[in-house]
């Protein structure tokens, strides 16, 4: 089984299309979308329809905080640009897309694998897993061999050591990492639709369970076109610049 993992797509059709083409070339046969399907970007309807199609074919999809906000749940943590984009998104999506979002769970467990947008410790609180303490809480609460999540836009891999403390690792794109079943892993796959680490390439990860390897990727895509669409939609210019600069 080769599982392709995407998070924080944020209505970026160009980015998710490029990532899907990339993983298909590598033989991906299962998909997981780890929340924040919408927000920020200019193609909420097309992106949601694409993911709904994958869900109909068995893909795992979980809810993110921007998705919840688009459904009308108040979220104080969003900044003004994010709120502007959410208001715009709410006007774009129709009943079909809203119904799809409403049906999304916060967390999905598949045997030894757990899918969640933010921390498994309290999925509805949208905790950013940026320190060892938060990583440890998520790993302990998740109680799974593999936890795949997003929310934090940078790619990161935590592994539980014998000492009972998680160890952080910043993956090198394209280098397969042996991730044996005898350890516990927490992988933050990075943002496909709005990377923020000064690279404008889309992030995703591919888990190869037969060979016990996890590979993080950075995929170049037409970020200029995506940024142009953000501007044409009348969304804040800052959101277009983020796609251009990756920051």
């Amino acid at each position, binding site marked *: 089984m080769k599982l392709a993992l995407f998070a924080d797509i944020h209505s970026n059709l160009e980015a998710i299309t490029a990532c899907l083409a990339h993983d298909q070339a590598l033989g991906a046969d299962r998909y997981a979308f780890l929340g924040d399907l919408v927000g920020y970007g200019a193609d909420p309807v097309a992106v949601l329809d694409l993911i709904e199609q994958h869900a109909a074919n068995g893909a795992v999809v979980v809810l993110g905080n921007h998705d919840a906000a688009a459904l009308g749940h108040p979220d104080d943590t969003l900044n003004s640009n994010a709120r502007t984009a959410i208001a715009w998104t709410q006007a774009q999506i129709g009943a079909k897309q809203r119904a799809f979002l409403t049906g999304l769970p916060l967390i999905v467990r598949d045997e030894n694998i757990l899918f969640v947008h933010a921390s498994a410790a309290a999925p509805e609180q949208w905790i950013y897993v940026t320190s060892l303490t938060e990583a440890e809480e998520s790993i302990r609460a998740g109680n799974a061999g593999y936890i795949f999540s997003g929310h934090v836009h940078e790619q990161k*891999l935590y*592994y539980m*050591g*014998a*000492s009972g*403390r998680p*160890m952080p*690792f910043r993956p*090198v794109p394209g*280098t397969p*990492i*042996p991730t*044996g*079943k*005898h350890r516990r892993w927490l992988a933050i796959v990075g943002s496909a639709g709005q990377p923020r680490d000064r690279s404008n390439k889309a992030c995703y990860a591919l888990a190869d369970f037969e060979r016990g390897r996890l590979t993080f990727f950075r995929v170049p895509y037409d970020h200029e076109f995506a940024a142009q669409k953000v501007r044409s939609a009348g969304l804040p210019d800052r959101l277009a610049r983020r796609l251009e600069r990756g920051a």
Partner: protein
Amino acid sequence: MNSLGPGSEIDGFRLGEMIHAGSMASIYRLTGRDGPLPLIIKIPRLGGGERAVNVIAFEVCRMVLGALAQGPHHPTLVAFGDVETTPYLVMEHVEGVRLNDWVQRAPVAPEEIARLGAALALALHDLHRQDVVHLDLKPTNVLYRASGEAVLIDFGLAHHSHFPDLLAEELRFPVGNWVYMAPEQVLGVRCDPRSDIYALGGILYELATGRLPFGSPRSLGQLRQRLYRDPVPPRALVASTPAWLQEIILNCLEIDARNRYASAAELAFDLANPTEVALSEHASRNRRAAWRTLVRRWLAARRFEPAPCPPPSTRIGPAPIVLVALGPAQSDESLFEALRDAAQRLIAADDRYRIACVTAVPPAAALSGERYEDTATGRHIKHLVNLRRWAKPLQLPEERLTYHVLESEKPAAALIDYAKMNDVDQILMGAPRSGAPVRLFPGVSAQVMAEAPCSVTVVRPRSES
């Protein structure tokens, strides 16, 4: 797993004679297989009573060996078993002599130490360039092939910056051989290629003096003395140790990694060219540091903050040696100037560059001439003078310039060998003169360009039209 022995079979591999039984793993030859390589199987000691680090060392060894490009400086990994069910590694059985054999005969002749050390430094550089730090360098972990190339054989404690460092978490005690361990490693830093340079310095010290630079520490307290203590200078123990060798050894054993050789390639260069080693206070030191210095260093050691880990290959950068190949004397002056201009531009672009001025000449019979300048020594000196004359206008400090006269019937091959042995980053050489009726060495530049292990820039003076 413990009932394994000669004759047992694992995944179709039949075990032969046991050749090593260590605390972490057992090693057997493999029998009944015809292949291009003689093979061994390494089986970690797992199960009740064994240390957890054995499992991790197995995983690390598999990860690092699997990621390294095929090359002469490490055994080729052929197959491996799952860590959860049947962990084993099948790899090339390297035929060679252990560095330990020389260590047991120490003190060893300085020329021999330089040869062994240079080969080992090149092997380390090959590793560092691939983002790996060995971190467990010791005389029993190094073999020499018949070709003279060094082979590193145990990667169980290595660090590869592309993979999670599985050992970092196990550091209640610093893992690795305490005898050769670098000060920063004592503090848990596992990412600095200069830690390997320190360990190599310890081995050179042992080869030169027959003694360990810091004895065999038995407690963490004794091990921590390394953070401020310097070793007895080798020349104070073995008076015949050449100054250049002490210079190299004490440079490697500097407490602060920033004061050591920046890369193993630079160390290899110095070991391969002892007469070119720039001597400093290291060379003349005849006793250990005074107590006042120790107190200062001890205080500094308490404040030591390990730096975050960048990939080793970005830190060591390109090997900063530029070989300038100059023709023998009476070559035309305009070409000399063009080469000097090219060298000048490189030096200005990067102040780490060192220039090796090299001329390749046919060997002279020892008693060939009647006049002094026709004798072998006379000719050699004449070439050196010529090289120095070329380099003088560059106004480079002494430690950034070296001079070499290579005597060979095949100048191109000599230059290529030199570039390989010294991990040269770039070669500057003159173009054959267009329109010249006779070329002194036809095809030298073509052959160097085709076979050199690095970039080659062929310089041609502007024609005066």
